[in-house]
């Protein structure tokens, strides 16, 4: 299947998986950082 021009299919497939996986990882990483910062800010907020 990957003989001839099939190599382009393989590269396109791997690129698609990597871009999507990278984006999901970036979302998770940003969510974790934001949650941590929000919890810290809420904890440090002076009581009214």
């Amino acid at each position, binding site marked *: *299947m*990957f*003989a*001839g*021009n*099939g190599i*382009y*299919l393989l*590269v*396109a*497939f791997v*690129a*698609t998986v990597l*871009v*999507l996986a990278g*984006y*999901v990882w970036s*979302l998770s990483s*940003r*969510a974790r950082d*934001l*949650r941590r*910062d*929000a919890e810290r*800010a*809420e904890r440090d*907020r*002076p009581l*009214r």
Partner: protein
Amino acid sequence: MMTDRTGRRDTLVGLAALLLLLVAAVAWFASPTILYPIGDRLVECQACRIIYFHVPSAWVAYLAFFVVFSASIQVLRTGEPRWDAIARSSAEVGLVFTTLALITGSLWGKPIWGTWWAWDARMTTTLILWFIYLAYLMLRSYVEDERRAARYSAVLGILGFVDVPINYLSVTWWRTLHPEIAIVRPEGPAMPPFMVQILALSLLAFTLLYMYLLLRRVGLERTAQRLRAAQLGVAGQGA
């Protein structure tokens, strides 16, 4: 704060998308060989299977920018932060899928047309689309006042959407390397039924994936709003 219910919903959508993507990926590689017309003969084309994820990437990009367009109208009409969060999130997800459409299109173009890139109407308008939404996200980052940033980018989100129908119809308006519209035609799709079925499955899988990514990204916006509220010391704020 992200509730357990919201988290469960996101996970369910994500699992459904992943399952459907796995089924679709098996179909991409197990499907019969595609025959591509070159001159007056049909040649076997393995790289043409890229159509199964190139077209859904472009479709999801259109969908994402339609969501930006609709949410931007709501931002200007109501000024509610939740519409802004949806528009901003959908623009980012749409940009990811436009990037995928450009990468996979280039990798398909090389074996078929003998070039990684050509300035044909479809490819050029896709690149313009990519720059429009990159500009949208940059505008968001550079304008510090949240309300002004929301208004400015809403205007760009509405005007930028004009490129989507131009991009879709470019293959009928101009002579391009891309084939004419082959799926949504009054006389039916111009491809074998097995390709239509696999494409439909892929479209569904990519649409579910878009929904999952959008939900996750909107969740991020909610947490950011919660952080801003906490930093301002204002109790009871949030999306």
